[in-house]
């Protein structure tokens, strides 16, 4: 056998391959930064991308929505309790925008014709004749504002607390962790309700109450990461070169924490939206005439039997907000930290 193959392939046919040692370390693919890598992975997640698009639309509407319908924000009692009507689609029977209402006996009411109202309100009007389309987007704006503010405060407190506790360790860590343990033993709901009772409901007090209860999770996650990172070589190297503790935390540990911080923030925002709506629903929310998603739902719930659209419109929007935020957060978690993947 060996002889045969030797005959078939004489030595002259072979040529010595050229091997360049310097090429063995060559990187074939373009190197990706942390963000590029994360973006590549988010892009593969269809649910996250769709959520991001819907969320962006909702955010844009929260900014420009109140000025779109052309109706003033004030009250107009003669236009009270009008059902949704959109001229362009009022002929499509399965869409609920034909400006009619069905009462409890099954009769169809046509308030627009009865009261000879020329204008049409896209999402109807409330009991004081305010345009619900305008109010809805104002509500979304305030709900998001509260959620973003509370989350930002959470982030600052949580990250600094967690970083200090984890970095300094020892007795500092021990005391700080015992405090967290006790704090997390108190149900959030209790603190939030008590704080709101004291501070009088308003945008600031709700934000504060949400922020005070929300930072504990962030502090825990950040501490865990810092504990892991602070003993790694790059931190040690920086310390040997004489960097201060603050510089090590800020310059060297923080960039490595960005992933977990973003993931945590993305989960905090929907929970803040939920708590704001929850507080409004049990009567501790914003006071009229301010509107948030929670107060709109509460007002709608009171008249659910007569004017169901007043509940359904804000209910759909808050559900959309919550679902898209959660899906996007899931997607980001998978992208930033494949180890935490479901």
């Amino acid at each position, binding site marked *: 056998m060996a002889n045969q193959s030797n005959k078939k392939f004489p030595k002259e046919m072979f040529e010595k391959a050229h091997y360049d040692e310097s090429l063995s370390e060559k990187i074939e693919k373009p190197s990706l930064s942390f963000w590029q890598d994360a973006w590549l992975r988010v892009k593969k997640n269809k649910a996250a991308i769709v959520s991001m698009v819907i969320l962006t639309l909702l955010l844009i509407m929260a900014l420009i929505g109140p000025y779109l319908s052309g109706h003033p924000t004030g009250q107009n009692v003669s236009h009270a309790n009008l059902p949704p009507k959109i001229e362009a689609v009022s002929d499509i029977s399965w869409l609920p925008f034909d400006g009619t209402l069905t009462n409890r006996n099954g009769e169809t009411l046509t308030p627009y014709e009865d009261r000879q109202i020329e204008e049409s309100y896209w999402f109807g009007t409330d009991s004081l004749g305010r345009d619900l389309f305008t109010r809805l987007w104002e509500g979304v704006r305030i709900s998001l504002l509260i959620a973003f503010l509370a989350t930002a405060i959470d982030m600052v407190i949580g990250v600094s607390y967690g970083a200090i506790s984890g970095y300094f360790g020892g007795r500092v860590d021990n005391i700080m962790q015992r405090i967290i343990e006790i704090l997390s033993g*108190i149900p959030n709901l*209790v603190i939030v309700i*008590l704080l709101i009772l*004291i501070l009088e409901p308003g945008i600031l007090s709700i934000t504060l109450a949400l922020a005070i209860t929300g930072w504990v999770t962030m502090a825990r996650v950040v501490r865990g990461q810092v504990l892991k990172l602070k003993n790694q070589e790059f931190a040690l190297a920086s310390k040997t070169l004489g960097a201060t503790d603050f510089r090590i935390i800020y310059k060297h540990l923080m960039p490595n924490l960005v992933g977990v911080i973003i993931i945590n923030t993305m989960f905090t925002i*929907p929970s803040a939206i939920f708590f704001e709506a929850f507080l409004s629903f049990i009567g501790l929310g914003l006071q009229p005439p301010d509107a948030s998603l929670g107060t709109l739902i509460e007002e709608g719930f009171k008249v659910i*039997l007569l004017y169901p659209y007043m509940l359904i419109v804000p*209910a759909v929007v808050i*559900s959309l907000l919550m*679902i898209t935020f959660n899906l996007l957060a899931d997607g980001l978690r998978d992208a930033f930290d494949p180890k935490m993947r479901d």
Partner: protein
Amino acid sequence: MGKYLLQRILFMLLTLFIIISLTFFLMKLIPGSPFAAAAKLTESQRAIMEAKYGLDQPLPVQYFRYMANVIQGDLGVSFQFSNTPVTDLIAGRIGPSAVLGLQAMIFGTIFGIFLGVIGALRQNTWIDTGSTLVAVVGKSIPSFVFAALLQYFIAVKLGWLPVAFWRGWEYSILPTIALSIFPISIAARFMRTEMIEVLSSDYIVLARAKGANSFEVAFKHALRNALIPVVTVLGPLAVSLMTGSLVVEKIFAVPGLGEQFVTSINVLDYPVIMGTTILFAALFIFVVLVVDVLYSIIDPRIRLSGGEN
């Protein structure tokens, strides 16, 4: 184990003590007196009323008196229900809440586990997508939005179930479903993850290799081990049920603790707010402890250690 348990219970009592003190002082921070709104009282009448409830005493005296009373199981008297003791009010209201909570917990976890298991067994099929969808939607939609929509469409529009009130078991169905949507979604998500992980472990491969059918493998071998970590989410779930009960009971007019709590907040009946708060907090702490201990019993691999790790 004994030392750990003792330490945990001590911590529990400390937390409870802090919560009671916190609620007490926060309540005192609220401006005005409970009788300030009753305009018909003269100055001297109000002084008599305040003396009767001990409100004329200095704050530390009031605090120690309240603490002593709480330890003896006396939570004070309600302002809104003509001096009924708070403990009586709570005792009268706890039944419906307990029924709803237990039903939602049992139904929620069992149905959620079922969804998670079939999702994991039929991974990446439409069944899996469906179960994940239910989980995401259930986790996202606030319980009161879901409850209000359920009430409108199922009870009012279709008339299948009673709209509200508490006059028999069928009245508890809709509130239970509304409350259990969160447990369902959390249990389903968690179960799916665990089940997928367990299904790829060596002993499952061995069971398959020995010829066990997939049904037997899934339910006899995999499910048991996948169930263990699910115990850890029971604590947070119980808490979410307490939060949910406030709004769901309000929506369905269930005469439970949550509904009473919301009413008390709206009329500022401080003793009832404080009593219910303390009860909620105590329940919460207790549930977390039970879950931790339970977990170590089910899974001997997890060693309980006291404080330090």
